[in-house]
C-alpha cells in the first residue's frame, strides 16, 4: 500500500497517512459540503492498514475548524483506529486545539467519550 499525501484546499485539510512510520496527520479546515467524497478513501485506506498495522500508530488531528458533515466522517476514521487498538496494537490520537478554543477542545472530548482509544489533548499556545 502507498502512503497518502493530500494537500489542503480552502474546504479540506491536508492529509498525510504513512504506513511505514505509522504516523497519520490531518491538518487544516474541514468544511466540504459533502464530506463523504473526501473521507471515504481515507477510511478505506485505514481499513487496509488495520489488517497489518505497525506496533504503534500515532494520529495527529490538527483541525482549525470542521463542519458537522465532517464530524461523522472523522468518527468513522476513529472507529477504524479503535479496531486497531482493540486488536492489541498501540494507538494514540493527539487532538490539537488552539489556545482558548473551548469548542475544539469539547469536540475532542466528545470523540474521546465515544471511541475507546487513548486521546491526548494538546493546547497550542502562540
Amino acid at each position: 500500500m502507498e502512503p497518502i499525501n493530500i494537500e489542503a484546499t480552502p474546504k479540506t485539510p491536508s492529509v498525510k497517512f504513512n504506513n511505514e512510520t505509522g504516523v497519520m496527520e490531518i491538518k487544516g479546515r474541514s468544511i466540504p459540503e459533502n464530506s463523504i467524497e473526501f473521507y471515504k478513501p481515507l477510511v478505506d485506506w485505514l481499513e487496509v492498514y488495520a489488517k497489518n498495522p505497525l506496533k504503534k500508530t500515532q494520529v495527529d488531528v490538527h483541525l482549525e475548524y470542521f463542519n458537522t458533515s465532517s464530524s461523522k466522517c472523522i468518527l468513522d476514521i476513529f472507529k477504524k483506529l479503535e479496531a486497531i487498538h482493540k486488536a492489541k496494537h498501540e494507538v494514540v490520537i493527539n487532538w490539537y486545539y488552539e489556545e482558548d478554543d473551548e469548542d475544539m477542545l469539547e469536540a475532542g472530548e466528545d470523540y474521546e467519550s465515544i471511541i475507546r482509544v487513548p486521546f491526548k489533548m494538546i493546547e497550542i499556545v502562540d
Partner: protein
Amino acid sequence: MSFNLKEYYDNLSKGDVILAYKGSITSELINDVLEGVEKKLAEANEESKTRKKIYNVLVESMQNLFHHIEEYHEGINENLDPKFGILVVEKDGDSYKVTTGNFINSSKIKYLKEKIDKINSLTKEELKDMYKFILNHQKLSAKGGGGLGLVDIARKTGNKLEYAFYNYNNNYYFFNLTIRV
C-alpha cells in the same frame, strides 16, 4: 397579508450590515461569503473566539441551505434564481446576528418546527448528549447532510434559535432563522 420578499429583505438589510446576499446558494458562494466575512472580522479586530463562532455558524447555516433548499419553486412568481436563499450578517450592539431565509414547502414545516422547538428546550448538557447521539447513531445522507447543523449552532452559540414561518401561498412558506452569536 401574504409575505412580501422585497419588504422582508429591505428590512433585514437596514441594520449595521456586514454582508447581505440573496440568490443561488452554491458551494462557490459559501467560499466567497466565508472569505469575505473572515476578512471583515479580522479588519474589525474581533477576538478570535467570536470570529470562530461566527465562522462556524455561517458554515452550518449556509450548508443547511445548500442541502435543503429546493432547486425550483413552483408557483412562486418572484423571478427567483435556482436554489434561492437569503443570508444577512449584521452587527447588533455587542453581538452579531446571522439570518437566513428560504422558501420551504408547507409539508416540511411541522418537522422543522418540532426539531427547532426541541433544540430550544434543551440545556447545554442535553444538547451535548443529543449531538453525541446523532453523531454516533445516524448516517450521513447521500448529499452529506448529517442532521447536526442546528444542534451544533445552538450548542456553540449557547443561544436559542429564533425562527418564523411566513405564509406565501398554498404550497409555500418563507422560513426565517436568526442566530445570535
